C-alpha cells in the first residue's frame, strides 16, 4: 500500500479500517441481520490462478454476492510502454500473459507493423502461426491440469505437464526461452526454425494425439467430474455479449466468434480448421470447446508445417522504428479470447499511448453474476472454467 501521508487528498472518504480490514470489505456492506458471513477467497487462495481475491457473502455455503478485487499483481505495463522505445517493450508482452506469450507478442508487433505498414515475409508468417498455435496448446494443457487440480484430482496435472514439457522443448528450439517469449520482432521473427524442429514437432503431434483418448477416459467421461461441471455457471449469449466475453467462454455458449475468422490476420485464411462450439453454456461446454481446440490447433500446425516456404524471416525495415502519427489496433485470438493491442504514436521513438485489451478482464467481470446463488465449490469450478490468468487481467 502506498504511504498514506504522501497520497494527495484521498478522493474516497476515509473508511474505518480497523474492523473491516480494508476499504473493499467495508464497502461490501454486510447484511445487517448478521445471518451471513463475509469471506475473502484469496488473494492467497489455492484455486485462484495467480493473485485474485474474491469477496464472498455466504449464507451457509451458498454465495449471496461475490465481488472480485483486482490489483494485487498490477504492474502498469501501459505506463512502461510510454517510457520505452517500441522495440524495448516487446519483452513486457511475454510477462503480461505468460501462458500464451506469443499471442501477446503477435498482437503488439502486429499493431506496430500495421501502423508503420511493414511487410512480413511468408516464412515468418508461417513460423508465427506454428509457434503461436503450439503455445495455445500448451496454454490449454496447463488450464486442463489446473482446472482438475481445483476440482480435487491431483493426477491429471502431471499428465498435462508431461505433454506440455514437450511443447516447451520444441518452442525453446525456435525462441530460446520456455515461457516468456520475446522472439517476434517488427516485420518478422528473430530466429529461424532449426532443422530438427519439424521432425520433432511431427513426433510430438503423434504422441499427443495418442494420449488424448487417455485424457478422455480419465477425466472427460468421469462421472464425478460431470457432476462438478455440468449445469454450472450457465453463461447465456446475452450475458456474454453484455460483458464482452470472448474466446472459449463465448464459444461454449454457442457463438462461433474467433478473431482468426472474424477479423482474419496473417495467413490464417489459408488453413482449413473448424471453430469448435458447444451450446450447453455451462462449464462442461467450455471444457469440451478447449479440448477440441487442441485438436484444431494440432491440425493447423500440421498444415502449416506441410506448406512452409523457404525465404527470409525478417522483413527489411529501419533498425529504430519511428511509426507515423496515428493509432492502430491489432486483435489476435489468444487461448483465453480476443487480445487487442492499440498503439498510438506521435511520430517519436516511444509510443504515446498503448492500450492492452486482455480477454480475461471481460471474462472475469461476469463472474459475479454467474456465481450468484451457487455453492462455494461451484464458484471454484466456474472460476476454473473461465481459464483466468490474473497477471493478464491486472496488467
Amino acid at each position: 500500500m502506498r504511504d498514506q501521508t504522501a497520497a494527495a487528498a484521498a478522493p474516497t472518504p476515509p473508511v474505518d479500517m480497523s474492523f473491516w480490514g480494508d476499504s473493499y470489505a467495508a464497502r461490501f456492506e454486510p447484511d445487517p441481520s448478521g445471518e451471513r458471513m463475509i469471506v475473502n477467497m484469496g488473494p492467497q487462495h489455492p484455486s485462484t490462478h495467480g493473485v485474485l481475491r474474491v469477496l464472498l457473502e455466504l449464507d451457509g455455503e451458498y454465495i449471496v454476492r461475490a465481488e472480485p478485487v483486482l490489483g494485487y499483481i498490477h504492474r502498469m505495463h501501459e505506463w512502461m510502454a510510454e517510457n520505452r522505445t517500441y522495440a524495448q517493450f516487446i519483452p513486457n508482452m511475454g510477462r503480461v500473459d505468460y501462458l500464451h506469450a506469443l499471442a501477446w507478442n503477435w498482437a503488439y508487433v502486429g499493431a506496430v507493423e500495421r501502423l508503420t505498414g511493414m511487410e512480413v515475409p511468408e516464412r515468418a508468417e508461417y513460423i508465427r502461426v506454428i509457434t503461436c498455435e503450439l503455445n495455445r496448446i500448451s496454454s490449454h494443457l496447463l488450464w486442463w491440469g489446473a482446472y482438475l487440480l481445483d476440482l480435487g484430482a491431483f493426477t491429471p496435472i502431471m499428465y498435462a505437464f508431461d505433454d506440455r514439457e514437450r511443447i516447451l522443448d520444441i518452442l525453446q528450439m525456435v525462441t530460446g526461452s520456455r515461457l516468456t517469449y520475446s522472439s517476434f520482432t517488427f516485420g518478422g521473427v528473430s530466429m529461424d526454425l532449426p532443422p530438427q524442429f519439424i521432425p520433432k514437432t511431427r513426433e510430438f503431434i503423434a504422441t499427443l494425439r495418442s494420449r488424448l483418448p487417455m485424457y478422455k477416459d480419465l477425466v472427460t467421461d468421469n462421472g464425478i467430474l460431470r457432476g462438478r461441471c455440468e449445469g454450472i455457471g450457465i453463461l447465456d449469449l446475452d450475458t456474454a455479449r453484455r460483458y464482452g466475453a470472448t474466446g472459449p467462454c463465448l464459444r461454449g455458449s454457442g457463438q462461433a466468434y474467433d478473431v482468426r475468422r472474424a477479423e482474419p490476420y496473417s495467413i490464417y485464411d489459408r488453413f482449413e480448421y473448424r471453430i469448435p462450439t458447444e451450446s450447453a453454456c455451462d462449464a462442461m461446454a467450455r471444457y469440451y470447446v478447449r479440448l477440441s481446440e487442441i485438436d484444431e490447433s494440432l491440425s493447423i500446425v500440421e498444415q502449416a508445417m506441410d506448406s512452409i516456404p523457404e525465404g527470409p524471416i525478417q522483413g527489411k525495415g529501419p533498425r529504430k522504428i519511428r511509426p507515423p502519427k496515428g493509432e492502430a489496433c491489432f486483435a489476435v485470438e489468444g487461448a483465453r479470447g480476443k487480445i487487442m493491442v492499440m498503439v498510438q504514436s506521435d511520430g517519436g521513438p516511444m509510443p504515446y499511448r498503448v492500450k492492452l485489451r486482455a480477454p480475461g478482464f471481460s471474462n472475469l467481470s461476469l463472474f459475479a453474476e454467474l456465481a450468484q446463488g451457487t455453492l462455494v465449490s461451484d464458484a471454484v469450478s466456474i472460476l476454473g472454467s473461465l481459464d483466468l490468468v490474473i497477471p493478464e487481467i491486472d496488467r
Partner: protein
Amino acid sequence: MSMTISLADPLVRLVLALVGIFAFVALNGLVLVYVERKVAGFCQRRPGPLHVGPQGLLQPLVDALKLVGKQLLTPAKGDRILFWAAPLLAFLPVALCFLPLPFDASLKAIEINLGLVLILAFSGVNVIALCLAGWGSGNKWGILGAARAVAQSVAYEVPLLLSVLAVAFMSGSLDLFVITESQGAWPWQWYAMKNPLAFLIFIICAVAETNRAPFDLPEAESELTAGFHTEYSGMGFGLFFLAEYANMIVVSGVAAALFLGGYQGPVASGIWWFLAKLYAVLLLIIWLRWTYPRVRFDQLLNLSWKRLTPVALLVLAGTAVAVRLGG
C-alpha cells in the same frame, strides 16, 4: 506385595494390547505416508520420494521430525482449549477401535462379544474432534469445514451400519472373531462374494467416513483453503494426519474381518492373511485418492441419503430373507 503379571488378567492384557496398538498405529502411520507418496508418484509417472535415505525410505521419518519440530501456534480468535482438545480427541479414541479387531485367532485383546458395536461407536467420536477443530480455530474456512465434516459423518453412519448389520445377520453374531470364523477359508465362502452389494456399500461408506479421496470435503484444499485444519501446524496437524491414517487402518481391518475372511486363508491362515487383506483394502483407498476429483457437497449427501441408504435397506431385507430361508 508381589504383583503377579499373568496374561490371563484382563487389565494386563488390555494395557499390553494398547501399547501394541499404539506402536502398530505409529509404525503404520509412517509406512502409509511412504506408501501413499510412492503410489501417488508412480500413478503420475514420477518416482515419489527418492533422495532422503535409500529410495526415500527415511522421508516419512524426516517429515515426522519436521512436524514435531514446528512451533505450536494458537490462533488468537480461536478457543484455546477446544483448539488443543481436538487433535487429541481425534487420535486417542481410534486406538480403542483396534481392540476388537481379530488380528489372529490367538491374539484376542479383550473378551468382548460386541466388538462391532464398540468400533462403530468410537469411530463416531472422530467427527466431534473435527467439529471442535473447525470451531476452535476461529477461522471462517475452519467453520465451513467443520460443518461439512458433521453432515458428512452423520450421512454416512447410516448406510455403514446397515451394511455391517447385513453381515451380522449372516454370521449371527457381533463378535468379530465369530464373524471371521463363520466365513470359510476360500474366497467364495467370504461374505464379500456372498453379499457383494453390502461390501460395495461398506467400502464407499468407509472411504466417506474417513474423509478420503472423492469425499475429502471437510479439508478440501482448493475450496476451503484447508478446511478444519487450516490453523493447525506442527504436531496439531500431525495428530490429525495420524488419526486419518489410523481410521483408514481400522476401516480396512473391519472390511478384511467382515467381508474378506479375516485371518483365514486357503493355505495357512494366520495374521499375515489378515494384514495382507488389510493392506489390499488400504491400497484401494489410496488408489481412489489419486484418480478422482472431489465430489460436490450436496452430491455427497444425496449419494448417501437418496441412494446408499435405500439400497442398504434392501440389502439388509434381502439378507434377512436369505438367512431365514437358508435355515
